[in-house]
Each structure stands twice: as C-alpha cells, then as structure tokens.
C-alpha cells in the first residue's frame, strides 16, 4: 500500500481519452511542459489540424463501440495511468449519464482484458457533482453521480480514483488473476 509499490513517474505512461476537449488539451499541454510523463491519446475525432505538429501518439477509437475499443487498445500494454476526459452531452442530465458510463466501462474493460499495469485512474467531474447544473432550479435535489469502484485482486495496493464525486475503493480480494478488476455500483 505504500507509494514505493508504484512505478516511478519517469516510467509511467498515461492513456488520455478525450484529449482535445478543454480538459484533455490542458493535460496534453501540462505533459509537454513535463516530459518525464509518457502519453498516448485516444478519441473518436482525429487530432485537430492546428494541434497536429506537437501531438502525442493518437489512437482513433469510438468508445461507444465496445468491440472497437477492445481492438483499438489491444496493444496498450504499458499504460500505468488513465486520464478520462471523454465526455458526451445529451439534452438532459438523465440521458447524459448512460453514454458516459458506457464509455468508461468500455475503456476499463479493454484495459482489464489486456491486464495492463494500471496504477491510477483520474476522473474529472466538474462542479456537476455538487449539483452545479441544477442552479436556479431549486425544486430539484442535486443528482449524485454514478459510483465507480475499483477492486484490486492482490492485497498489495490500491488504485487511485481521483474523482469529483462520491467514490469508493474496496480492499483487495485474494485471487491473482486478473491483477485488477472494477465494479460500477
């Protein structure tokens, strides 16, 4: 459970999904200033023309497509850190939850299938977690975002979820294969 069980930052490899929205762009820029981090990006859209010159390696993938995601991520055996910045918005918050949860699920399933040495996952929720998008509609109660928990099947360490919302991690089970798994509660 100590930090020393993690791979040093200099050997870490980020998979950034949703790289060319506001948040993803910020992460790419931060990595460019901090080159000890390796990074690969993945999105449905190609790298924007105006970013092409300095763009990190990019994978074309539609995260809504389960099979396609598994295939697209099939060679990503070195990923240690997942930054999840993909986002689709639907007309209502209720409709927005499902496709976003599905994209996260497909991503995690694809990485789990490869048993990549994933150590940390970062999720960004924005102030929606506080009911920000409900401001001015005070008759509604703030929505709680869906919960995600990661379960590691060895007892040696936990993953990190860095999430602007409710979060739960579970202690490890005992079996050894696969190295990690995850649940959506």
């Amino acid at each position, binding site marked *: 459970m100590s930090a020393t069980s993690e791979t040093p930052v200099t050997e870490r490899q980020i998979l950034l999904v949703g790289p060319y929205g506001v948040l993803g762009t*910020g992460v790419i*820029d931060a990595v460019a200033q901090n080159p000890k981090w390796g990074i690969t990006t993945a999105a449905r859209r190609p790298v924007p023309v105006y*970013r092409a010159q300095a763009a990190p390696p990019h994978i074309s993938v539609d995260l809504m497509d389960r099979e396609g995601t598994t295939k697209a991520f099939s060679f990503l055996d070195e990923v240690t850190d997942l930054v999840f910045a993909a986002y689709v918005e639907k007309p209502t918050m209720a409709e927005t939850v499902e496709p976003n949860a599905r994209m996260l699920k497909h991503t995690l399933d694809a990485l789990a299938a490869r048993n990549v040495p994933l150590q940390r996952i970062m999720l960004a929720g924005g102030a929606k977690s506080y009911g920000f998008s409900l401001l001015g509609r005070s008759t509604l109660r703030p929505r709680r975002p869906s919960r995600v928990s990661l379960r590691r099947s060895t007892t040696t360490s936990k993953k990190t979820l860095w999430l602007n919302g409710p979060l739960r991690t579970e202690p490890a089970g005992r079996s050894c294969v696969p190295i990690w798994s995850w649940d959506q509660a």
Partner: protein
Amino acid sequence: MNLVTSLATYAAMTRELGLPLRFPGTKEGWNTLQETTDAELFGRATLWALGEDKARNEIFNVSNGDVYRWRQLWNELAAFYDLPIAEPLAMSTVSEMSEKAPLWDSMVAHYGLHATPYDQIANWAFVDWMLNFREETILSTIKIRQAGFADCIDTHQSFRRQLTRLRDLRIIP
C-alpha cells in the same frame, strides 16, 4: 465545453457587426462572484494527482485560486477586440446568434482562419447558461492545497492567454 472560444466568437462577430461589446446576460450574472479553472492548471493538477501518494483515492476541487466578476473580466474581452463595452442586457444568445453562420463563414475566409463549422466554434446555450448565474459558485480548494498542490493562476491572465492562443492558432480572428 470551451467558454472562451464561444465568447471570443461572440466578440469577434460583434466587432464585425460594428456593435459595442454588450454583456448578453443578467445583472446578476454580471455582478456575482464566480471562479473558474484554467485548462492547463487542471493539466498540472492531473499530473500532480497521478504522481502524489496523498492523492490516491481522494477527491479534490481545483480552481484558479482567485475569483472573478464578469463586470471586470468582460474588460479583457473588450480590450482583446478593441471594443467599447455596452451595459448588460439579458438576452438569449441562442436566439440572437444561432442564425449568423454566414457571417462566421465569411470571417473564416476573410481572416484566413481554420474552417471550424459554426455549430462547433460556439455553444450559445452554454454561453447563456454561464453568463446568467444568480448564485455565487465557489468551491473550496483548501483540500488540494493542504495536500500539496499550491499552483494557481490569475483568472484575468488566464483569460488573456487563452484568447491570445486561440488567435495564434488561427481559430478566432
């Protein structure tokens, strides 16, 4: 959703129309205290969180570290396009701006911009939402600062830098 790109589009089109830069939101939206998060600061917070032991299994708020009011920040947008400011007038940019795609297309050609489709360069519903907060929306960032992430940026500087970058990338005039 990129508010800065949308607002820059609004201001550039305002200039094209020969109008002063009117704040298209309510008096409350003009005056209430707000905060925001610079994308690159968020990126640095992300790298900090991935590498910092104390960040494991934790939830953090991150924001610039200061607060702003549109009635002050709006000056930055006006200065960037060298426009006079007009008093707030609550309106829907969705209804005022949505049908101006031909103007945008002509600006793309005239200024040699990247050909971003009008429905992608700006999100007017988002603008309407963001400029009309009646409540102050300040999230505490004490937790991330006490955990060791002390980075911050002046919101006015962040706004100017993003505008400049969008212009340098030829996304906006």
